């Protein structure tokens, strides 16, 4: 018997397939493996961030600081490598530790002082964005050999298609996240806390540790995304990734994860990110749309998608009842 809990994720996948097919019929040159791979290449950082955000949202929280943490990571990396001559081998671990520490701090404040995640991570967003400008208000371009090498390296697959190193990192993150969410005690606890924090506490689950770990994980993911973003942009700038937190949340929600927590899959998030990328690709293939139309179309598609999902989940509830 087909398990109904997989329905939202199937819908997400179905919509992705439908959009891809529609694009292929409409535009010549759309239907190719490389277009699909480009989705991954251009959205590797979004994918990594969204995976971290999935855990946060599954636990019933929210993390608004991700975009700023990405910007801060690019800024610190660029400043240390370019202006202070640090080796990338030292900078990358350092920014990852800093990002995780930032997430840990927010998680600890959220848990121990019982302040709403929305507000704590909002303060975190202001703080990280502000720290960017403290470092510098201008763009710092990176011409370090290691960074340019990683940025230009292409890993060739069959028949002329290729991916970047960022895609490998992103896919590795997804694999680890799938394992964490579905095969570990930590993953179980995340779902349980999202279902009901009180019940989780009464069941004897380590709520404090899990909750703080969730935000640490999200902080780690956003700083890793920042590292990938640095490879992608080859610069550090305080205005990088503005509004990324909302893109990320949208991707997670399109992937079928409920914002109230407890329901959703990491795999859904992957397709949520791919759908967002696909919308951008279709708009760029269309070519005649002005920049403001892009925003309106993305808003409309977001609306259609959520409505579809809503209808399906409503039917699911009536079946259950």
């Amino acid at each position, binding site marked *: 018997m087909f398990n109904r809990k997989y329905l939202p994720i199937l819908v997400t996948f179905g919509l992705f397939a439908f959009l891809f097919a529609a694009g292929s019929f409409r535009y010549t040159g759309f239907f190719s493996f490389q277009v699909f791979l480009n989705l991954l290449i251009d959205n590797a950082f979004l994918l990594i961030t969204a995976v971290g955000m999935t855990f946060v949202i599954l636990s019933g929280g929210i993390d608004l600081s991700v975009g700023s943490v990405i910007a801060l990571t690019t800024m610190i990396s660029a400043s240390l490598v370019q202006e202070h001559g640090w080796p990338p081998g030292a900078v990358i671990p350092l920014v990852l530790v800093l990002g995780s520490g930032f997430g840990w701090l927010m998680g600890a*404040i959220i848990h*121990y*002082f*019982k*302040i*709403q995640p*929305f*507000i*704590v991570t*909002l*303060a*975190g*967003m*202001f*703080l990280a*964005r*502000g*720290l960017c*400008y*403290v470092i510098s*208000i201008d763009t710092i371009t990176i011409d370090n050999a290691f960074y340019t090498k990683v940025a230009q390296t292409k890993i060739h697959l069959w028949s002329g298609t290729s991916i970047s190193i960022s895609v490998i990192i992103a896919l590795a993150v997804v694999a680890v996240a799938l394992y964490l969410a579905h095969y570990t005690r930590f993953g179980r606890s995340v779902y349980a806390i999202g279902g009901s924090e009180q019940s989780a506490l009464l069941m004897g689950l380590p709520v404090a540790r899990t909750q703080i770990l969730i935000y640490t994980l999200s902080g780690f993911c956003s700083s890793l995304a920042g590292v990938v973003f640095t490879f992608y942009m080859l610069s550090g700038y305080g205005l990088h990734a503005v509004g990324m937190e*909302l893109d990320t*949340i*949208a991707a997670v*929600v399109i992937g079928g994860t*409920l*914002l*109230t927590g407890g329901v959703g899959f990491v795999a859904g998030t992957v397709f949520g990110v791919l759908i967002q990328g696909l919308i951008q690709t279709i708009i760029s293939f269309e070519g005649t749309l*002005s*920049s*403001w*139309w*892009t*925003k*309106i179309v*993305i*808003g*409309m598609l*977001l*609306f259609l998608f*959520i*409505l579809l999902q*809503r209808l399906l989940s*409503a039917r699911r509830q009536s079946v259950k009842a």
Partner: protein
Amino acid sequence: MNRLYRHHLFWPLAVLAALLLFNLLYSPDFFNLVVRNGHLYGSLIDILNFGAPLMLVAIGMTLVIATKGIDLSVGSIVAIAGAQACLTISKGADQNAWGVVLSAIGLAIGLSLVLGAWNGFLVSATGIQPIIATLILMVAGRGIAQLITSGQIITISSDRYGYIGIGSLAALPFSIFVVAAVFLLVSLLIRRTALGLFIESVGCNPRASRLIGIRSRLVLVTVYVFSGLCAGVAGLILSSNVASADGNNAGLWYELDAILAVVIGGTSLNGGRFYLAGTVVGALIIQTLTTTIYMIGVPPEITLVVKAFVVLAVCLIQSESFRKKIVQRWKTRRYPAEREVARHV
């Protein structure tokens, strides 16, 4: 004393007082008020004048949050209302004519009501989570605002329209009267009629409210329409203040500042209870903070960092468990020996 301490306005007012005290110590000129050409000038008036749009948006947001919702689209509605009003005026033959100005205001307000109703429809009829439902308009709204202005900044010159943002009535900025009128009206509506109770009831449990006979959908639509209206009026004030409309940057980050003001004011994001006066104080805290940061000559780049720390400090002070922990730590530090004895006895 204990009652005073427990009052919901105690901490917001204490923070505001601390900010004002800091300003008084830092530069005594802060409280100076000067009358020039029948206008009152001074930092305090500036705070009220520039804070007016934020106060309006935050009042609307308070009611939305009271129903356990959130409205992320207010910043976009601010931009759209300003864009529509400026477009209408710039097209008028005589930009100062009453007809042109009034139709501009009417069109902008009408548009913001429609947008609010759209949000309300999404939240109440389809059951989409508010943060996502309003996210749609937040994303698309900036596009709509740019569509209205054709991607450009529309500049206008209309004294009658400018009166909304820079005019003064009885020596005080006109915008303050708009805020005061809205605040009084809403306070009366929610505390003298059952509307406030309905809103709180829907915020606690929409289903239970519907079962006891409250038309929870109507209540939901109403608060989102009202939030849209507040944002629309804020858009009018903002655009008339600078005599231009910028689809991209008008009202940017307003949603976050408004939510912040509501939370600082003591309203919980979990819905079911709200404090209008607290929200107004919260908005004043944010505006005073911004003014203070500029005044003490902190480089504008660091504004966000200072804001982050103040936000965190305000929330920590308000957090019951933080206060308990601090008090406990203080006590254990003070009487370690006695505690040790007590534990072993």
